[in-house]
């Protein structure tokens, strides 16, 4: 109950504080440069130069403190030793390149990058096309979209019930092993099987992200001009040809957007690995490796920061591409 009060009063204070800032600063501006009297024109012009910054102020403050500053600080910190007492130059990065766990994480992240965006987009496209004209299509879409609302940890628990292993001969309570034994195979401890375990963790993320891809691609499919499809049908194109030769090429741009958005999610993947294997049995990924160096045992902020900067470098191309597109659009 106390907590609830704390939360409610925070909201009240936060909301009040924000409103007070925006309203108060505007009021003050209007007092300093009153938009009337002999120099009204001049005053309005000056006030209008200042006002945007009043509106933007809190946002800029937050963005620079919580996103820009940390990137710079992490970079700076990555040039120091474990507790930040000694400048070591690029030693942390040299160490990274030679570290087995880091290489494993890089390779795994690359595998995630290849598999997850591809499968999510593929299934998303398939789901969007299949459910498009069905009577129950919207219900179907909701159900495929649903995992988006589930936390990665919750998804971890859900999939634990699928990957669970029981010794051969006992009743399998994990769905996957049950199917395998029904087909006459041997039950496996899936999460410890090299390579397989990575793939199985990726499937969890594909399960979550497919809904996202489906929603976006479904909107794009509906935006395709009907004439192009009708013309193709009149010319005798088969449904498959219509899909692959008429529809898909027209939504290539959207597919690229979906792909890159999921790519960013994949690069930062942490929770799934953290709760399901914690990077054991060859499933380590960069974000979890960084967590290990920063918060487990004796923290090594230098190495942890270096890994964080590697992550940052990996997303930079996408960042540049996004900015490029956004600017093109503003013009």
């Amino acid at each position: 109950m106390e907590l609830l009060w704390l939360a409610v009063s925070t909201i009240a204070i936060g909301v009040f504080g924000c409103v007070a800032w925006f309203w108060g600063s505007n009021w003050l501006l209007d007092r300093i440069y009153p938009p009337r009297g002999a120099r009204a024109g001049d005053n309005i012009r000056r006030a209008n130069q200042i006002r945007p910054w009043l509106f933007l102020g809190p946002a800029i403050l937050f963005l620079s403190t919580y996103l820009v500053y940390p990137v710079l600080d992490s970079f700076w910190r990555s040039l120091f030793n474990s507790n930040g007492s000694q400048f070591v130059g690029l030693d942390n990065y040299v160490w990274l390149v030679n570290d087995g766990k880091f290489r494993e994480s890089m390779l795994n992240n690359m595998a995630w990058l290849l598999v997850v965006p591809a499968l999510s987009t593929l299934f998303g496209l398939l789901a969007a096309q299949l459910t498009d004209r069905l009577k129950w299509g919207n219900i179907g879409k909701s159900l495929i979209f649903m995992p988006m609302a589930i936390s990665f940890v919750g998804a971890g628990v859900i999939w634990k019930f699928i990957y669970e292993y029981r010794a051969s001969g006992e009743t399998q309570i994990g769905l996957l092993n049950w199917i395998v034994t029904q087909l006459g195979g041997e039950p496996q401890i899936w999460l410890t099987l090299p390579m397989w375990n990575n793939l199985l963790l990726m499937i969890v993320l594909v399960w979550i992200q497919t809904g996202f891809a489906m929603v976006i691609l479904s909107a794009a499919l509906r935006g395709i001009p009907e004439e192009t499809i009708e013309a193709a049908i009149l010319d005798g194109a088969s449904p498959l040809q219509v899909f692959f030769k008429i529809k898909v090429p027209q939504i290539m741009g959207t597919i690229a957007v979906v792909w890159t958005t999921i790519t960013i999610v994949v690069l930062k993947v942490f929770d799934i690995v953290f709760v399901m294997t914690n990077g054991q049995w060859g499933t380590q990924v960069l974000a979890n490796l960084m967590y290990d160096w920063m918060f487990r045992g004796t923290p090594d902020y230098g190495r942890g920061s270096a890994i964080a900067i590697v992550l940052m470098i990996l997303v930079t191309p996408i960042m540049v591409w996004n900015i490029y597109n956004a600017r093109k659009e503003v013009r």
Partner: protein
Amino acid sequence: MEGMAGQKSSLAWAVNISAFLLVLLWTIPTLGLFVSSFRDRDQISTSGWWQSFSGSVQTGFVRSGTADDQVQEGDLYVIEGSALEGTQELTSWGTNARQPDANAPGDTVELEPGIDLTVTEDGAYRMTSAQPFEMRRGERIFTTTLSPPAFTVDNYNRVLTAGGLGRAFMNTMTVTIPATVIPILIAAFAAYALAWMQFPGRALLTACVVGLLVVPLQVALIPLLRLHNELGIGKGYLGIWLAHTGFGLPLAVYLLRNYMVGLPREVIESARVDGATEFQIFRRIILPLSFPALASFAIFQFLWVWNDLLVATVFLGNTREQLVMTGLLRELMGSRGGEWEILATSAFISIAVPLLVFFAMQKYLVRGLLAGSVKGG
């Protein structure tokens, strides 16, 4: 596709069936958790949830009575008893470990010449012999029984009253609500400035916001934790609210700006001509018109904060009093991996709120996704 539907009804069937399979595949994992949360521990650990509708098969064995238990009936010596407890139903039985289900209920088996054993459906066994029994140890009887499908809400009672989860639920609420409301306010003003005010550097700022969208928040953990410690905020709710506000802002500003740019220019221009101040325009015109965009960001941020594990672990700490639901689940998975029923029930409770929000507000969520992603498409 109406024109084609007539001539290609087999295609329509194929589409229906494959769509159904796809939906099924995507629903089964969650369904499994849901069903499991209503089963007790024994059921979860002895059979898969998909078998729970057909009742669960259990095997066991008992020893019959010994020579001490025999009674004489006419010229037969008899040992009687029950091989089952309670009101289970016997599906098969046996006397050999290698073939524990060799016999059907009611069968009579000759154990040794002159000694017969019968086990009936209700588990009652009857061993008869013409000679007096002499064995010291009872005969082994293996049983296979079928329990009827049974579901229970005990797990929910236990989990909800035990404290740990209730506390975590409150913690999650306390983290989530301010962390959803505050960024919306800050972002709405900034988005209005970026969309409708003229000032130098506007394009550059907009580009910066787009760029910040993808910054991995892992980069921010250590610097911010140190900053918070230096400022005296330390680990606690204030810190996590501020952190979530910062991390959520780029998306908020971006979504709201994109939406506000699309609002009709005439309305805003005419209000300016009528002498409305920027603040009045914002409050009376922009905010009400932007409601759909505000709603979609609110849902994003709510889901994201509610489901977050990393930020909560780092900025809030891991003691029992501070644990949020995702943190609690993680702990349950690690330390009490055997308590499946607690894990399943807790997990389902923790995903129930986001699922409710999701199904209730799906329209806004989809709209927000489209506004945020379909660019250059």
